[in-house]
């Protein structure tokens, strides 16, 4: 068992089979991260097509049918292919090292959870080349667009989602079992690093709502192929039922995306502030209450669909309530930095940007949760701007921060700090140029998901497209920096890597050996 990992030098068959057959959490984490990055580039390419078309009013590059496929595929690939696997990759790499475990609880299932994903996304993406084209009904796939009016290829989408969901459920069960069962002696729950806490809560959310997504696509499948009438009022069903089921999954899903991001910045900010995290236990409780509340606010996505007034009011107040635990978190991050001896390495820059921009996105969320106001905002670019602030500046920024922060521990080499900072500033400025104007577009009434727009929206759209290409360019720099670090980076030997870093993973040698904690460490 104690053999080292195969390298290129052992011949490509050995090397390839290492990755195909691996049961090692670090290998699987690496696979997840690279897969996620590949999907990020693919989803990014779709976004570039969208923004290129929207650069000017009128139809220039693609036809509206293809535009619809692009918005749909961009959303699906980014949410399920890029962001979620990125955090599962981090979980794989980090959770065992952070809790002093030798590996994940169920290593073979771990490998299976990963390898399902390439199949799921191959199925999904292959529809673009099939007759009828890919899914074109938006990433929220509302019925009857996704049932009665969908292309035949929707069936590939449905089964792709099914196996992707199976992968997520297995991955989360694995994480729950690892955290509950594999902590080193002395690692009590309230000593766990916040990243572990946020992930185990995320895993609960996933196990609870991925089956709901499976239910939603199953109902679609039946309606499309077997004559049932879940989403058809003619038979006594209701298209709005789809929205309820989808958002009962969908809202917790957005927290599935953001909670691990909270975890990441809660690790990074204390390190570069050289102070322990302020209000650790309140962070844990805030995370848990956000997770709980995420189950009871779903219909804030449906204010305009026609709900009884009592429903509108309930979902409005319940949603506004989430601002309280979210506020606790933001307060704690800021207070952690207060009077700290701050330094601004790349991970810290991304984390600070996260705090600022995520808070901004939270505020626009509050605007959207006011039912009466949402009648105006709903399905405009204001919503698009809102969720890109929380998902890109939230989840993606924190993922980038995480890669820079732990990369030296993973591969024993230091990235190029200057290049990291350059990337940060291009990303930060590019991001804001892309999405800030979309608020104005939305408030002025530009609807989302259209291939063309009125002339009054031309200026902001052009600016937004410029920003998008800038942000895209920053990702190329990111890739370059990471690859160069792995091949030519300056070696690091210090186990702690960062002066202020605390936690078990920083007690391990750098780079982290293939097998770690084969005997559990003692945590005092």
């Amino acid at each position, binding site marked *: 068992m104690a053999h080292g990992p195969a390298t290129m030098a052992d011949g490509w068959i050995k090397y390839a089979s290492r990755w195909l*057959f691996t049961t090692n959490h670090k290998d699987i984490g690496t696979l997840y991260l690279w897969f996620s990055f590949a999907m990020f580039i693919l989803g990014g390419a779709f976004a570039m097509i969208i923004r290129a078309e929207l650069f000017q009013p009128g139809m220039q590059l693609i036809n509206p049918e293809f535009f619809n496929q692009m918005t749909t595929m961009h959303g699906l690939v980014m949410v399920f292919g890029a962001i979620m696997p990125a955090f599962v990759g981090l979980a794989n790499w980090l959770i065992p090292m952070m809790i002093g475990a030798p590996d994940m609880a169920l290593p073979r299932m771990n490998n299976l959870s990963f390898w399902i994903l390439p199949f799921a996304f191959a*199925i999904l993406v292959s529809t673009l080349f099939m007759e009828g084209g890919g899914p074109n009904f938006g990433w929220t796939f509302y019925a009857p667009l996704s049932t009665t009016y969908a292309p035949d290829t929707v069936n590939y989408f449905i089964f792709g989602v099914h196996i992707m969901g199976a992968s997520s459920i297995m991955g989360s069960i694995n994480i729950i079992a690892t955290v509950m*069962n594999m902590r080193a002696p002395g690692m009590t729950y309230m000593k766990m690093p916040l990243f572990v806490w946020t992930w185990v809560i995320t895993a609960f959310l996933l196990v609870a*709502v991925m089956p709901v997504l499976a*239910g939603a696509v199953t109902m679609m499948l039946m309606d499309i192929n077997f004559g049932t*009438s879940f989403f058809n009022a003619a038979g006594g069903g209701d298209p709005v039922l789809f929205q309820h089921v989808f958002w009962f999954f969908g809202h917790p899903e957005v927290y599935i995306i953001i909670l691990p991001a909270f975890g990441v910045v809660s690790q990074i900010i204390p390190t570069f502030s050289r102070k322990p995290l302020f209000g650790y236990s309140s962070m844990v409780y805030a995370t848990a209450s956000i997770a709980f509340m995420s189950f009871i606010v779903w219909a804030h996505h449906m204010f305009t669909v026609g709900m009884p007034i009592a429903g509108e009011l309930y979902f409005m107040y319940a949603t506004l309530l989430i601002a309280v635990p979210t506020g606790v978190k933001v307060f704690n991050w800021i207070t952690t930095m207060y009077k700290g001896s701050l330094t601004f390495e790349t991970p810290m820059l991304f984390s600070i940007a996260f705090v600022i921009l995520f808070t901004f996105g939270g505020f626009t969320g509050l605007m959207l949760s006011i039912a009466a106001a949402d009648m105006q905002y709903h399905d405009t670019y204001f919503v698009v701007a809102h969720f890109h602030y929380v998902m890109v500046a939230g989840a993606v920024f924190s993922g980038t921060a995480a890669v820079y922060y732990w990369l030296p521990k993973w591969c024993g080499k230091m990235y190029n700090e200057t290049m990291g900072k350059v990337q940060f500033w291009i990303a930060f400025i590019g991001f804001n140029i892309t999405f800030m104007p979309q608020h104005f577009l939305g408030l002025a009434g530009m609807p989302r998901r259209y291939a063309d727009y009125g002339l009054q929206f031309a200026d902001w759209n052009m600016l937004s497209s410029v920003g998008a290409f800038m942000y895209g360019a920053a990702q190329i720099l990111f890739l370059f920096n990471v690859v160069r670090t792995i091949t030519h980076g300056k070696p690091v030997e210090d186990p702690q890597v960062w002066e202020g870093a605390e936690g078990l993973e920083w007690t391990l040698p750098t780079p982290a050996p293939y*097998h770690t904690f084969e005997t559990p460490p003692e945590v005092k």
Partner: protein
Amino acid sequence: MSTENSYYVPEQSKLPIIAATGMGTLAFGAATWVIDGGSPYIFLGGLLIMALVMYRWWSLVIDENMRGLANQQLKQSYVLGMLWFIFSEVMFFAVFFGALFYVRVLVNSWLGGEAAVGWFDDTPTGTAVANNEILWPGYESQWPVMETPDQAANGDAAQFKGPEQNMNFPGWGRILHWLPLWNTVILLTSSVTVHIAHTALKNDNRKKFNTWLGITVALGIIFLFLQAEEYIEAYQHMGLTLETGIYGTTFFLLTGFHGAHVTLGTMMLLIQWLRGLKGHFSHDDQFGFEAASWYWHFVDVVWLGLFIFVYVLA
């Protein structure tokens, strides 16, 4: 928290990647198959791969256990894995129950132009009234929906026509002909028999274990048999199919998924029974059996929900 000072991390394994290939093939094949004129062969290929890989995988796990490689901690991981898997299944059924309640209580009233929660406020909203008068004139809220909104508005031209009969309680006189009641008795009994088998195993009474587990498996098979009977009845004599509007939709989906889970549970128990005959398990090591029996209890509880909400309170 960890109690062991070493931990079994399995060697590299070829099984997961084969399983992933199987799942991919299965998913791709299923989509190909359901599209009009599609062939089932890719799907069947995927199924074959999955069957083989699952057989190999479980055999391996059992083998590791027999060789003593699985320590207490790994066993605990399996326990957690199984429990959370069952939780995810609970959520899957919750969606279909949720859909049933939503449609029955809210949608059905709105389509009929009524207030949804009458005891709270019995004036229908303007939307509900318009729904009924403009879109589905003539539809009256009812459950089971025997005449669909489509039928009420469009008569014989309707695409969705309601069923001729439903599965409701047929009255005390015919109670003994009411299959769901029998099925309830059978499943409840099987939960008891599986428990007796469990107790027997804990007391090292192998013979009793084999007998009672065998009985449980038999009850599972009888249940499935009766369920098939019920479906045949529905399709051939009651005009109740998947296509008969929302009643048929919810009825078949809920009972169908339950039936699929009973099938899976029966197979799990059957395998444990065969293992029991081969002399696997001991009074303190019986996880495979326990996991299957938890699953069985879960399937049982779901049935109770079905019996109450699909059959009795209809």
